[in-house]
């Protein structure tokens, strides 16, 4: 029997070539930027931008692995920031308490998604794309499109506390959260069951698991993550805006990065660290274009292009592996026939 060691498993994994690309791209960026990449200023821009993405990745990544999708995270995050800012402005409550209230509100949003999918049996794609619109609409209705300033100093600290001058504390927090999620996914029964449900819902049902319950937990967690991510975004921006998160579309960046990082869109495969690598890759690429003073109009195009190429390469390698397997089993059959 073959013994698999962790290193060779890692080398065979989908994340491995991506990490190589990531390192190579970072080095290239560093060189072409003539030293402007590893400056405290650029690091802060890059890492602050990723905080909301990494927090969202924790929720969306798990949902993708369970074979579902939530396209309303951007809307949920925006609505949460609006509710939070409104409460901060119009009530005397401590911001920490408002934070908790907003979190409960987020769980209610998650419950709505759950009901649509579990009870009314909408596919998660349809249900959440619809709700996304509802949430965004509510944001505009709340203030007729205006931003709400946030001036609770304690809260704003979350968006500007740095370690060593270049490392945002909220970024470290996001990484720790991701590590906890990855741990749960890899080492707990609940985490493994998510893979079972996503890998083959029928088999999961036949094995006595309850896919609906798993889905509910994930939708609730995801809404909570959307809320936390959104609020950390607001802390940086010092306000809540009905459009800024939607325009920046961190959720789309996360879904693209997750798939790039080997999380299967169809469920059942991948891991959050891979997703993180994918997200990092997209962000560094975007950052590189900005440092090189390439007009912003091109960055959207270029990011999409990288994604398309990466997905194509991924498809080709999967196809090749599938064909190799088919050929091997055909050869075995032929040998069998010749022998018998």
């Amino acid at each position, binding site marked *: *029997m*073959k*013994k*698999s060691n962790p290193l060779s498993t890692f080398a065979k994994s989908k994340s491995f070539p991506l990490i190589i690309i990531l390192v190579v791209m970072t080095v290239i960026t560093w060189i072409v930027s003539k030293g402007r990449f590893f400056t405290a200023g650029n690091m802060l821009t890059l890492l602050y931008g990723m905080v909301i993405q990494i927090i969202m990745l924790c929720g969306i990544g798990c949902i993708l692995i369970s074979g579902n999708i939530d396209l309303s995270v951007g809307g949920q995050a925006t609505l949460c920031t609006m509710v939070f800012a409104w409460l901060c402005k119009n009530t005397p409550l401590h911001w920490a308490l408002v934070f908790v209230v907003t979190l409960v509100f987020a769980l209610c949003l998650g419950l709505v998604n759950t009901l649509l999918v579990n009870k009314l049996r909408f596919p998660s794609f349809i249900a959440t794309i619809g709700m996304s619109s509802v949430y965004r609409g509510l944001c505009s209705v709340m203030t007729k499109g205006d931003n709400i300033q946030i001036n609770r100093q304690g809260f704003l600290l979350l968006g500007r506390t740095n370690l060593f001058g270049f490392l945002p504390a909220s970024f470290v927090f996001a990484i720790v959260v991701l590590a906890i999620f990855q741990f749960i996914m890899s*080492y*707990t*029964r*609940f985490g*493994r*069951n998510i*893979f*079972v449900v996503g*890998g*083959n819902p*029928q*088999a*999961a*049902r*036949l*094995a*006595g*698991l309850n896919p609906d319950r798993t889905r509910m937990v994930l939708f609730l967690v995801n809404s909570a993550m959307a809320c936390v991510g959104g609020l950390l975004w607001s802390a940086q921006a010092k306000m809540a805006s009905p459009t800024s998160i939607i325009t920046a579309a961190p959720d789309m960046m996360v879904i693209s990065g997750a798939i790039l990082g080997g999380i*299967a869109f169809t469920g*059942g*495969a*991948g891991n959050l660290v891979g997703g993180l690598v994918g997200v990092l890759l997209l962000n560094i690429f975007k950052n590189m274009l900005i440092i090189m003073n390439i007009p912003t109009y091109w960055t959207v195009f270029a990011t999409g292009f990288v994604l398309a190429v990466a997905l194509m390469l991924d498809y080709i390698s999967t196809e090749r592996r599938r064909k190799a*397997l*088919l050929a*091997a*089993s*055909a050869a*075995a*059959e032929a040998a*069998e026939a010749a022998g*018998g």
Partner: protein
Amino acid sequence: MAKTLEFRGIGKSYPGVRALDNVNFKVESGKVLALLGENGAGKSTLLKILSGDQKPTDGEILVDGKPTVFNSPHDAHAAGISVIYQERQLMPSMSVAENIFAGAIPVKGKGPMVDWKKLYEETKKLIDFFGLDIDPSEQVGRLSIANQQMVEIMKAYRRNSDIIAYDEPTAPLSEKEIELMFQGIEKQKQRGMAIIYVSHRMNEIFRITDEIVILKDGKHVATMETAKTTEAELITKMVGRDIGDTYSNLRRNTPKEEVVLEVKNLNTPKLHNVSFQVHAGEIVGLAGLVGAGRTETARAIFAADPITSGEIWLGGKQTHFKSPRDAIDAGVALCPEDRKEQGLVMYRSISDNIALPVVEYLKKGLFVDRGIAGDLADKAVSDYDIKTPTIMKLVAELSGGNQQKVILGRWTSDAVKTKLLILDEPTKGIDVGTKAEIYQKVCDLASEGIAVLFISSELTEVINLADRIVVMRGGSISGELPRAEATEENVLTLAMADEAKKEAKA
């Protein structure tokens, strides 16, 4: 441990179909019972009822003498029943160990943490028990099909079920693996499990089963002791149903000399050296069990699937079709097995569906000439007596029989010059009256000189309709029978014959 299972008066009705009717039999602990029957005899339905996937309309299942109702697969598991389906229920990206223990992964103490060491050890024990060479941490998707099947079997074994049903488990396995599996079943017998074994392979049935239950058209026709019966007797019991006047009233025509289709040494990943001919005006029946390669042959001729080697000649010319489009243009028409998925565009009108293959030729400038398309559809509706108020009705709203007529109408309209008509299970799920209409229409088309390749799992139908029958088995042609020799016994013998016996006869 030791449990018995009994089916008492089990019946299952679907709208318009009686899939099972008063099935009674009992499986004793420590015995293997074979469930035998033609395609569509009701074996799969019975297994679905046993697994808790579907509920019987009548009757009851008794486990250890106690009536038991299964509302879900989970209930069946709880009662100690596992059904191993032909379609594997695996998570390809997860490890062998996690697949086997899905839903019951061992944890440390009571906590949420997975006990990986125990998981892998337990899996290793199972793998050793079956004498396999698989790494418990290997991804299931990377295993060979045969090993994937073994994972499925280990899964049922792990659950410590007392009652296990296998649905054609050996189909994807090699000789060596079948041997291992049989040893496993032998061990299960010794442990007192009750086993139901569904297979078409006679040698397997005689080798490992103790009793045989034969189903036919949903009815339980016989229970026999394996040791006291013969292959010939089993086949006789499986066939021999009443053949009504449906066939004797058909107006038939004699085939012509001209060869329309000639297939020479056709090979694809699923077909091996398939060769046969179809003459003008001839109806050739393509018989065989499910998975024998009949549909694959049809799809290869129609260029729906690529061929590895071999030649296809149409009307005396060798063809090099690159796609179904080329095949259609050369006069080949295919009515596929799954009419809803592959035959029709369900949410378009009858007219659109009939014009589908010729829509390119109905264009006037940039637009489709609805008038001509309508004329084609009107003609098909009257030719085939399609029951619809208007040709604009959506195909999804028609009955199965009328849907099939729409497909037939499509391929026999004046706009398509069909020379070879391939019908794959054209009467599946269609009522008796419409079946008779379709049979007559097929005969009429043959009289017009069209060559017909008729694929069906219903033996009576093939035997009575075809001028000649080509029988397939395991991707190859196992024999040809002229109409005079086409009895169900002869066809089934060819369709099920084991290689060794065939060689002995030759």
